[in-house]
């Protein structure tokens, strides 16, 4: 596949929806820096994988960028302080999660100085030729990415270093940078492309260097012409650097605006015409996909040595007075940024983190911004439809027509309702990307995606329980076996004891009988002597047998032995 085919032709994915983007609300104007709040609540699990372990104590002074949560295991990402201050508590607090359950957070009372910890960049910024990029190895960059706590900022939250490491080991020939940002309202990637296109391009070069991809494509929806232009200009500006480090240039390709074009698998399909295999990864077909914000964060880590301590958040919706994009320190309360953008309490209908299609309603507005927070949508009444009560399925199959993964939502819905997990698995529920198209088009307002999320969770739960039962069975059987063995050993010991006792008794009896005079003591004495002679003979024979190794000696060895013998004698 040559790069030119990418430009000549775009493919498409099945299903999908034309949605009212409502991006103009927030996509104008610069990125404002949100104020550093008095208290930061930094969650210790902001990624997929093992939660991190706190490495600070209450009362510790921390600086911005200092490690506060240590990554556990391979799939994990460390957490850093997002401003300087004092740790006042490490406790469970509500976090933005659909469950509404609390998670362990580090609470930092900020000192207002916002002082950075020592940042050690891998490449200095005053290197206009980007010569230093040559000196860096893929391992060095990957380590820096891991150290900086970077996760997939497109929403997957998978630790980037782990993903890059796997891609590096597999043969990955195409790097796709996802700039589609297809969900309505959200403009944080758009704002980043407007304002910091150079950071993105340099970040892409770094990622490309790690995975060793030949081609690099940036996919962007055609409703962002300004971002497209900014990125194109940046690519032109860095042409020399790109040329020096890549055989192929970075292509930026506009894709038609259709939800969910920003889904990883959909974007790959549109750009390359390849389909990711069912329950597989893009790496299986030689492709790796990264979000554009992730690329910019990689740049920050390598060129400035800064870990991931802030992100751009879109704050938008009808109830927000001044919708905008803000650079927010991770751990800032959502109430703070709503206050800064201005909101009208009387107009608020729903408060959603993420977009209207895939986001979830927040359990409270006093929850912190995490690495996952791309958008806060505060809608006014009538802005977002509240689905009316669900009606029975009429088998119109609109859900199947809209499904970008070509699944059969109506079938999966029946099986989810009947809790027939095996069947729903057969219908490839794990290929569902939870984009919400099926629920959106359903004329009976059936919450299909919720059924699929529920079914997926049930399947995982079942698997977990089965694993636990298997472990318990194994341990129980092992214990039974051990008890059986112990019982046998005890019985054996008892039997031996009994036999010994019986023998002893018999001997005593014999002795007693011998005393009676059946055998003459002389003869028994003679027997004993005979026995002793036989024993001593046997012992001698054994000793001789042991001496065998001195036979068949060579002359030199014999001499050595003799000399040793003489020395021994001489000493005595």
């Amino acid at each position, binding site marked *: 596949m040559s790069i030119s085919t990418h430009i000549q032709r775009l493919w498409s994915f099945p299903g999908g929806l034309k949605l009212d983007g409502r991006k103009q609300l927030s996509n104008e104007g610069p990125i404002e820096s949100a104020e550093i709040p008095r208290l930061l609540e930094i969650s210790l*699990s902001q990624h997929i994988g093992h*939660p991190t372990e706190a490495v600070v104590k209450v009362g510790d002074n921390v600086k911005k960028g200092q490690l506060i949560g240590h990554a556990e295991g391979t799939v994990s990402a460390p957490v850093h302080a997002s401003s300087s201050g004092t740790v006042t508590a490490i406790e469970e*607090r*509500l*976090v933005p*999660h*659909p*469950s*509404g*359950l*609390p*998670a362990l957070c580090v609470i930092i009372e900020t000192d207002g100085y916002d002082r950075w910890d020592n940042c050690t960049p891998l490449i200095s910024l005053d290197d206009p030729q980007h010569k230093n990029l040559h000196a860096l190895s893929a391992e060095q960059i990957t380590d820096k990415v891991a150290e900086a706590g970077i996760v997939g900022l497109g929403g997957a939250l998978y630790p980037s270093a782990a993903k890059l490491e796997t891609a590096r080991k597999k043969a990955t020939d195409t790097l796709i940078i996802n700039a589609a940002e297809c969900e309505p309202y959200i403009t944080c990637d758009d704002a980043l492309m407007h304002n910091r296109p150079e950071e993105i391009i340099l970040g892409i070069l770094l990622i490309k260097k790690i995975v060793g991809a030949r081609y690099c494509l940036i996919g962007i929806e055609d409703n962002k012409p300004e971002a497209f232009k900014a990125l194109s200009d940046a690519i032109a500006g860095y042409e020399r650097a790109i040329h020096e480090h890549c055989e192929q240039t970075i292509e930026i390709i506009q894709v038609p605006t259709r939800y969910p074009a920003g889904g990883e698998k959909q974007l790959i399909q549109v750009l390359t015409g390849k389909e990711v295999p069912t329950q597989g990864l893009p790496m299986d077909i030689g492709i790796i996909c990264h979000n554009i914000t992730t690329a910019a964060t990689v740049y920050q880590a390598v060129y400035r040595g800064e870990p991931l301590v802030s992100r751009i958040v879109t704050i938008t919706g009808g109830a927000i007075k001044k919708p905008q994009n803000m650079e927010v320190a991770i751990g800032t309360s959502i109430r703070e940024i709503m206050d800064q953008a201005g909101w009208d*309490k009387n107009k*608020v*209908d*729903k*408060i959603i983190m993420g977009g209207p299609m895939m986001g*979830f*309603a*927040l*359990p*409270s*507005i*006093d929850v912190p911004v995490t690495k996952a927070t791309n958008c806060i949508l505060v809608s006014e009444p009538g802005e977002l439809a*509240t*689905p009316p*009560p*669900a009606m029975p399925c009429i088998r119109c199959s609109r859900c199947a027509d809209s499904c970008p993964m070509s699944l059969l939502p109506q079938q999966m819905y029946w099986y989810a*309702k009947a809790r027939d997990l095996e069947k729903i698995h057969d219908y490839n529920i794990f290929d569902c990307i939870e984009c919400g198209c099926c629920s959106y088009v359903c004329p009976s*307002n*059936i*919450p299909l995606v*919720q*059924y699929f*999320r*529920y079914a*997926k*969770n*049930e399947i*995982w*739960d079942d698997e977990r*329980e089965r694993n*636990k*039962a*298997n*472990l*318990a*069975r194994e*341990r*129980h059987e*092992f*214990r039974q076996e051990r008890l059986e063995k112990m019982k046998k050993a005890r019985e054996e010991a008892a039997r031996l004891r009994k036999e010994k006792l019986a023998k002893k008794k018999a001997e005593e009896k014999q002795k007693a009988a011998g005393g009676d005079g059946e055998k003459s003591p002389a003869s028994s004495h003679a027997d004993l002597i005979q026995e002793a002679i036989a024993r001593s003979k046997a012992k001698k024979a054994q000793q001789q047998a042991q001496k065998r190794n001195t036979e068949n000696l060579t002359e030199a060895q014999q001499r050595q032995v003799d000399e040793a013998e003489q020395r021994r004698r001489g000493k005595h």
Partner: protein
Amino acid sequence: MLWGILAIIALAALFGLLLGLASVVFKVESSPVVDQIDALLPQTQCGQCSYAGCRPYAEAIAAGEAPINLCPPGGENTVQALADLLDVEVLPLEEEEEAHEGPIVAVIIEELCIGCTLCIQDCPVDAIIGAAKQMHTVIESECTGCELCVPPCPVDCIEMVPIKQTITTWHWPEPQYDVNHTPTGNIFTTIDQLLAENAHP
């Protein structure tokens, strides 16, 4: 006429032979029904079914001596699965006096433990570690919550506690399919709820 009959007989014999061979060569090895039943049981080894463990209960079901609804830890899902497997009617679960909500594990109150090893001897899955006159402790990941360690403890230092739900173990609830209920599993909380009681946890 005769040739026709002979030909039919020959064909019948040939196909009979083929079928007979196929049934031997392509025989499907199915695991004995006891293993299949045992695989569906939760393996808590708690004995609430009045049998000595999950395996003996599976054997009793296979022999037709026990009903399928004696396993409280397995709950209704297990009864359903057993009914499907054995093609019998689903029976309502025979509840013990009190049923726990959700999974539980044993926890030893360390200040009270005298190190008598009685609980260790009764644990069916070796999930308690300790030695004589040493404090004991329960390995949480191995504990099946069978409660067999509770009665032998002379100082009542073992408590059964529910496993706490966390963000990683939480899962999406089943959507409510009810006309009177907003059917979004998505918690579209109203603003009053948002701003009121749970504002400060």
